[in-house]
């Protein structure tokens, strides 16, 4: 069988290569270049090898200490908001109406927080939480809670977590709702015939059918929350102290505040790598969950 060779196809692929090169590969390589050098300004650079990376992973140095502490805070933040938003999103999706005008109303209301620009979300909560003029802060203080997100670490965390839940639970809920809508009626009818309880229906039908969209929701929410910058920066500016300084905030401080391009470049590469690895692990674990065992048995049988 003869295959016709047509080199013209390269003309179709070439633009993509160029776009990817200029938008991703070249900037990335610049960062790699910075990460192995040091600069004292004036556009003068000195070779530093893997020095920044070593420092970054050594908690006894200033850079390493700050980086690892912010990674810890970021992981804790992501874990908390995932633990709240995923179950809450499922509950919201389950309690949404299935037909009628209420569906459209619910969808619009749910979509609203997603449409607000991030720094506006931050500003809204910054004001909302203020003890003197903010509704939330004022009411909390009036009913006896000593709430002040500027001074108290726990209050600051409480505020940004609440903000993230308010901002992003809709996304999880909408994804789950789409998953639920795709379940044919026959499944519910069969479950009814089989005498399944509400909980059994959820466990045997709804949850497995939402598997895929939940995977997407967890991935999206993890990546977003791990890269979060604008909202906590607007609300707390990383404080009080360094208690809400997440990796991205730390990165901006180093890169733009101190103009340590080498350190910042090394940090962003490691940051990027962490996100890639965690996503890959998530994806592998969640797509293989439940399929691995029967695959092995099939081999034996």
């Amino acid at each position, binding site marked *: 069988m003869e295959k016709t060779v047509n080199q013209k196809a390269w003309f179709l692929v070439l633009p993509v290569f160029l776009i990817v090169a200029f938008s991703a590969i070249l900037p990335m390589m610049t960062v790699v270049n910075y990460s192995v050098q040091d600069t004292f300004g004036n556009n003068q650079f000195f070779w530093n090898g893997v020095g920044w990376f070593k420092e970054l992973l050594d908690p006894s140095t200033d850079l390493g200490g700050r980086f690892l502490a912010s990674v810890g805070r970021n992981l804790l933040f992501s874990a908390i908001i995932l633990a709240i938003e995923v179950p809450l999103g499922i509950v919201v999706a389950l309690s949404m109406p299935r037909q009628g005008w209420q569906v459209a109303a619910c969808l619009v209301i749910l979509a609203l927080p997603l449409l607000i620009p991030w720094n506006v979300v931050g500003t809204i909560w910054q004001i909302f939480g203020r003890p003197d003029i903010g509704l939330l802060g004022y009411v909390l203080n009036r009913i006896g809670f000593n709430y002040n997100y500027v001074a108290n670490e726990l209050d600051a965390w409480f505020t940004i977590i609440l903000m993230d839940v308010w901002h992003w639970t809709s996304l999880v809920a909408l994804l789950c709702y789409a998953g639920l809508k795709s379940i044919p009626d026959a*499944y519910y*009818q069969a479950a009814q*015939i*089989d*005498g399944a309880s509400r909980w*059994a229906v959820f466990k045997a039908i709804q*949850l*497995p059918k939402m598997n895929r969209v939940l995977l997407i929701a967890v991935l999206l929410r993890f990546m977003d929350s791990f890269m979060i910058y604008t909202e906590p920066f607007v609300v707390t500016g990383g404080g009080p102290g360094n208690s809400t300084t997440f990796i991205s905030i730390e990165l901006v401080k180093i890169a733009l505040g101190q103009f340590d391009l080498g350190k910042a470049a090394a940090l962003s590469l490691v940051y990027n790598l962490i996100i890639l690895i965690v996503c890959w692990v998530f994806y592998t674990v969640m797509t293989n969950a439940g399929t691995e065992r*029967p695959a092995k*048995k099939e081999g034996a049988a």
Partner: protein
Amino acid sequence: MARIDLVDLAHSYSGNDAPAESFALKPVTMTWRQGGAYALLGPSGCGKTTLLNLISGIVTPSRGKILFDGTDITQATTQKRNIAQVFQFPVIYDTMTVGENLAFPLKNRGVAAPEITARVRQIADLLDLTPYLNRKATRLTADAKQKISLGRGLVRSDVAAVLFDEPLTVIDPELKWQLRSKLKALHRELDLTMIYVTHDQTEALTFADTVVVMHDGRVVQSGTPAELFDKPAHTFVGYFIGSPGMNIVPAEVSGREARIGGHTIALKRTYDGLKAAKIEIGVRPEFVDIVAPAPGLLSATIERIDDLGRVRFARVRVGDAKLAARVPPGFLPSGDTAGLVFNPANVHVYADSLLVEGAA
């Protein structure tokens, strides 16, 4: 295990106030005997699935009552009715193994574990699912999945009835035969009332001892396959059952004869004083022979001859009416015209589409 009575049962999806003609199921009163094998036969959209869902309780009727062994269960939930139903497309629970799938209906009803195991094993044996019991159900083929659905329908021993909603649609023709005979065998073995919905007459006639034919939301006839074939109560039954369907020709009927376009056909019984807007005679192609044209015979134009292997049918035209007729073995029509010979015992008279029983 129950006798099921439907009393004036009717349903409309747009509420009770909808005009009577728009009802998906028009009022029906009938009895399903305990242990019977029934088929609900009719074209798509004739209301058979509606009737099935009314019996299982997925749909609550607009009017009428449903009795199980004399107890009114019209408003009872599906769970309370104790009905099993198998749907057109396989429904399996993805996260469970085949065995867990089969056990699910029993588990939900709090049956004791040893009994569940025994029952699941028995049903898996009957459906040849035993080798798969510990496998995840998701990775099986469509027909294995449908077998699991069937199994879940059959696994409870105490059900009032098992309802099948065109369960073999997704199955290969080869396996269809096997599964159908399997169902028939299961019916004998388990002594369950089974109601089987289908639009395929072969499926209905081979599965059921009683076939219920539906048309346009009405039950038009229920009877044994032989009754449906020999004496269709409605022109629709005649047309729908049999291949090719019954010949239905407008005619004038008086006394013991029918007239088609000036030609007289003898009838077995006497029909006097028929008053209806539409009088037709119906006769199955098997009971009309074409012969060489001769005086005294109804003459017809041959359009084509279908050779079905075992038997040949001629498609002929009499005036505006199209008929099918048997070509006797060895007969070779010469030219386009032929005579038609009717077997009087099998010529039925229909007034406004309903069978008229003549006087002897």
